[in-house]
Structures are given as structure tokens and as C-alpha cells.
């Protein structure tokens, strides 16, 4: 291996890469802008939707209840809902969003209450429809308040204390640090995104430097130079790897900043309801995720180059690499699924293992044994992929496929 030659090839490829708009868009612009746009879009959309739904006073219909005026009056007294007159097509009206929910009071409800016979009041609503769910929530709150008041009066009538029906209470207390709470919720996504984007960043340079060269007719030009095929592949590989890393670094930076912004925005909006959301990621965790993603990035770069080299044109290479995206996405998605935990067998499955360990690292859990196995196994796969790329580059049947 001639390091000088590798460096010359790398510098030339870098210069060409920096002048190529297509690869710059996929490597730099997409990861930089994707997250801020996605996050700010999500925040704005949810603010508009939730805010709008909360502002609305839902129209509620009462079914029956003519013989139970007390509960009807309690509902009507609630300013957060608007009780509308009964109509037989109440179900259609909920579906068509003319009313948000309907309360069905059983016949003889009041009489049964007086007798002490248990009753069920049904609240009809449209699941998945935010405003309908809010309406049902208001109705339920109102009915619970009415029930509590009723219980209190009955206890008072019999001179019994309130504690008779609630002898003790429970309260939850979180001991996890705020950053780990945030990490648990977004940790799986960080690893997933780093993996997907480090591959995305490598795709276009990998095609451009192999099938692209064949299509442009520069492959024969470079093969007639004294540079060895090994040095040529390594120079090209380093560029694809650089592109992959650049995309991963930019995407994580952009994602970190976007999450920080989202956390800040959500904390501010949550102040009113009393809940706080922390989305701070530790620098150590982010660096550790990068280190784990490094050999995977090498693996992607080498495999993508090898596969793209079989193609004669840019378009053909794209058709080869598109199915490969699914091969990467499937294990990456599997790691995000609830209940998929790292175990010795999964630690040897490339992509899935890195994605799972990243999930743990982000939440501040460092299982050094697993980390070592995953890092080492991915390094072995990456070395094998580079070897395969070099060997493929030496095959005349691939380089001059007709």
C-alpha cells in the first residue's frame, strides 16, 4: 500500500465531491435541515391541533335523563361543555363532528341512585378524534365530581368521615435523572437515525465513485495510471467514509439542537399544566454513539461501493442500492420496537446490535461487555467488507462488464 497515492486519490475525490451539488445535498443539506424542519413542524402542528381542541367548548348531547334532573343539571352547570338538545341521530352527529360526545343516562337513574342500586352512565365518543376525546374527558370529569359530591353528602348524612371510602392515597415519585428520562424516550431514535443517515450519506458518493466513473468513461483513464487498485479503492473508500461520517455528525448535531429546542418549547408550554420535559443528552453519550457508529459507517461505505461497482450506470447502481436501504432499515427499526433488548445473540447481528447499544448508551447505561463484543464484531464485518471491495475492484469481469 502506498499512502501517498491513497492521499492523492482521496484529495482528488474530495475536491470533486465538494463540487458536486447532488452529493452535497444528500450529505450536508438533508441531515442539517431535516430535523429542524421535522421538529419545528411537529411542534407547530401539535400546538395548533391541541390548542384548537382545548379552546373549543365541546357540544354534548344527553340521551334520556328526563327522570334524573339532578345529574342533567350538574352536566349543564359545567361551563366547559355545551349541552345541546337531544336528537335521535346523535351517533351520526358524533361521526360528522356536529357534536363531540353523548351521555347516555339510564332510565330511572335517579330512582336507582336513591335505592342504592349501582348504575352505569355511558359516554359515547369517537376514538382517535382529538376534540371528541376532549369532550368525553370533560363529561367524565363532570360526572365524577357529581358522584364525589353525592358520596360526600351520603357520608355526612350518616356522620361518617371521608376517609371511610379512601383510607389511604398513593403518589408516584420519579428517581431517574431528567436527562435519562429524555434519553429513554428518544434514545432509540438517535441510534436509529445515526445508522440510517450514515448510510444515506454514503450512497451517492459510493455510486458516483464507482458506477459513475464507469458511466463517465473515467474508469479506464484512472486504471491506466500507475496507482495500484488497492490504493485506488482505499482512496475512494476514504471519501465515501468521510461523506458517511459527515452526514452522521451533522445529523446528530442538528438532531441534538432540534431536541434541545423542542425540550425547551415543551417545557415552556408545560409550565401551565405543571409537567416538565427534559431532553438534554449528555456529551459523553453522543460521543459514545459516534464511536459505536464508526465501524458501522466503514461497513456501509465498503459494502455500498462494492455493490455499486457491479453497475454500469448511475441509474443501475441506484436500483441495486435501493433494496439495500430496506436491509438496513429493518434491523434498525426492529431495535426501536418495545421489548427488543440486547442479548448475546443479537449482539452479533450487524446494524441491529449497534442500534440497540446506542439505545442503552443514550439512557446512560454502559454494558462494557456488550459494547466490546458489538464494536469488535462490527470491526470484523467492516474489515471483511473492505477486503471484499478491494477484491471486487480487481475483477476485470466487474470493471469491464458489458
Amino acid at each position, binding site marked *: 500500500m502506498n499512502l*501517498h*497515492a491513497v492521499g*492523492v*486519490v482521496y484529495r*482528488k475525490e474530495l*475536491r*470533486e465531491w465538494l*463540487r*458536486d451539488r447532488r452529493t452535497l445535498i444528500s450529505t450536508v443539506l438533508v441531515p442539517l435541515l431535516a430535523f429542524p424542519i421535522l421538529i419545528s413542524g411537529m411542534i407547530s402542528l401539535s400546538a395548533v391541533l391541541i390548542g384548537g381542541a382545548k379552546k373549543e367548548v365541546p357540544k354534548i348531547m344527553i340521551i334520556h335523563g328526563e327522570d334524573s334532573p339532578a345529574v342533567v343539571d350538574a352536566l349543564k352547570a359545567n361551563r366547559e361543555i355545551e349541552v345541546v338538545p337531544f336528537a335521535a341521530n346523535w351517533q351520526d352527529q358524533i361521526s360528522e363532528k356536529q357534536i363531540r360526545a353523548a351521555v347516555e343516562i339510564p332510565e330511572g337513574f335517579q330512582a336507582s341512585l336513591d335505592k342504592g342500586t349501582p348504575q352505569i352512565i355511558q359516554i359515547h365518543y369517537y376514538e382517535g378524534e382529538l376534540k371528541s376525546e376532549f369532550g368525553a374527558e370533560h363529561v367524565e370529569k363532570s360526572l365524577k365530581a357529581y358522584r364525589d359530591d353525592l358520596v360526600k353528602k351520603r357520608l355526612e348524612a350518616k356522620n361518617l368521615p371521608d376517609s371511610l371510602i379512601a383510607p389511604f392515597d398513593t403518589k408516584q415519585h420519579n428517581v431517574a435523572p431528567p436527562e435519562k428520562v429524555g434519553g429513554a424516550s428518544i434514545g432509540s431514535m438517535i441510534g436509529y437515525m445515526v445508522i440510517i443517515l450514515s448510510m444515506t450519506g454514503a450512497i451517492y458518493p459510493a455510486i458516483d465513485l464507482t458506477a459513475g466513473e464507469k458511466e*463517465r*468513461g*473515467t474508469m*479506464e*483513464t484512472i*486504471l*491506466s*495510471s*500507475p*496507482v*495500484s487498485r488497492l490504493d485506488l479503492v482505499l482512496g475512494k473508500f476514504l471519501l465515501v467514509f468521510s461523506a458517511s461520517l459527515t452526514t452522521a455528525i451533522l445529523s446528530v448535531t442538528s438532531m441534538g439542537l432540534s431536541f434541545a429546542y423542542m425540550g425547551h418549547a415543551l417545557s415552556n408550554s408545560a409550565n401551565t399544566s405543571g409537567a416538565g420535559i427534559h431532553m438534554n443528552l449528555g456529551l459523553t453519550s453522543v460521543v459514545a454513539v459516534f464511536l459505536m457508529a464508526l465501524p458501522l459507517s466503514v461497513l456501509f461505505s465498503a459494502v455500498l461501493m462494492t455493490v455499486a461497482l457491479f453497475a454500469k450506470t448511475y441509474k443501475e447502481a441506484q436500483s441495486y442500492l435501493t433494496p439495500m436501504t430496506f436491509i438496513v432499515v429493518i434491523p434498525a427499526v426492529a431495535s426501536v420496537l418495545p421489548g427488543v433488548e440486547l442479548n448475546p445473540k443479537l449482539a452479533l447481528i450487524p446494524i441491529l446490535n449497534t442500534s440497540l447499544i446506542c439505545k442503552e448508551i443514550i439512557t446512560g447505561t454502559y454494558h462494557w461487555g456488550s459494547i466490546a463484543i458489538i464494536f469488535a464484531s462490527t470491526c470484523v464485518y467492516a474489515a471483511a467488507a473492505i477486503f471484499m471491495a478491494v477484491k471486487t475492484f480487481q475483477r*476485470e*469481469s466487474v470493471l*469491464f462488464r458489458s
Partner: protein
Amino acid sequence: MIDARGLSKRFQDKKRGEIRAVDNVSFQCQPGKIYGLLGANGAGKTTTLRMLATILEPTDGTAIVASYDVIDHPEKVRANIGFLSTATALYPRLTAQEMVEYFGRLNGLDEHTLKKRIDDIFSRLDMNSFRDRRCDKLSTGMKQKTSIARTLVHDPPVMIFDEPTTGLDVMTARTIIGFIADCRDRGKTVIFSTHIMSEVERLCDHIGIIHGGKLLEEGTLSELRAKHNEHNLEEIIVKVVGPLANAEA
């Protein structure tokens, strides 16, 4: 000097089975001379020249190029040749100067020598007006000149041209022909393949006629004319290749 010794190249084809693209071809090219390799499409010219340039490895036989064996020292062979064909394109996003610099560096030239060589070649080929223009913005003639500069930058003793004027306009083709003649005058060993008989008659000191991967006839132009009692080179080729071509048909 080029000394091809029983060069052979076989390819495997899924439909046609084994294909003998070049079959036991031997010839010699001397310094200061131009060797013309003639033949129809698919005769084996490009494969022969690619083997001499070490882009392809011979299945059998070998060749000595600039004192190096193409099998044992392919990188040293490539450091001593300039290879130009219509298939050797330029990097579109590099400028003409960057393109030539790249190949100079790959050939191990130091920065001082590289600069001197580039200045000299660019002046000689009248390329200074477009040296900083990207290759994808160059005209066909400018591209050919840049390709020539790329092959010359390391001053190789052996030049290999594979149909260098195919598809070019008259003026650009003239530049290439002039350049090939100049290489001979500078004492370089030159081999080139072409379909254009006027180029052969004008340039070649020695001619080889190849067909079906085999070298069928070899000699100087006057030797071939005398042997076949025919002045027209095209007719000579038809006489040599014709019986075989008719048998194949």
C-alpha cells in the same frame, strides 16, 4: 520498446461460452517507430492494447513494455506508458490543470517538476487559455488536448493509442495525428489502432492486421503492398481478412 509474446485473452460468456478475444499474438514495436494495429470491430485490437497497458491481465503469454513485464510489474509498466483512447474520459468536475496535475502526482512527480512540466505542455499544446476551466465546460478539441497533456505529463517512453480519432471532427483528429507523429519524432515507442486507412498510411512504420483475435499479417506498408501486389491498404486488409470473414459468415 514493446515486445508482445504470445499474448492471449479469454473471456467467459454465459451465452457464448469461452471467447478468445486475443489468441497468441506476438509482435514488436521499436522506439522512434509507430506500429499500427488494424482490424475490424471485435478483432481484438482494444483487448490487445488494454493488456499492454495492464488494464487487463493476459490469460496466456506476456508482454514486455519499457523493459517491464506486464504480469510481474503492472504498476511500473503503467508508470512508463501514456494510454489514450476514446474511452479515456476526463473528470468533469476538475479543471484541465487539476486533471493533468492529478495524473502527474499519481505518477510520483514532485510539485516543482510537475509545475514545470505542466507549464511546458500547456504552452506547447496552446492550452493556457482554458487551463482553469472545468473539463465539463471544454469543447471536444480542448478535451482531447487535455487528454494528451494527461498522457504526456510524466514523459513516458511508450505511447498506446486505441482508436484515438474515432468520432472526432477533422480539426481535432488532426491535432491527435500531429501529436502521435510528434511522439515518434521524440523517440517514443508508439502503438495505435485505427479504422482510418489514411492515418495508417501517413503515420505507421509497421503494420499488424488482426482478426478474430489472431495476428494474421505483419510488415511495413511497402512489404505488405509487395506481398499482396496491391497498393490500396484497404484492399490488402480485405485480401488478408476476407477469406476468414467469409468463412465465419
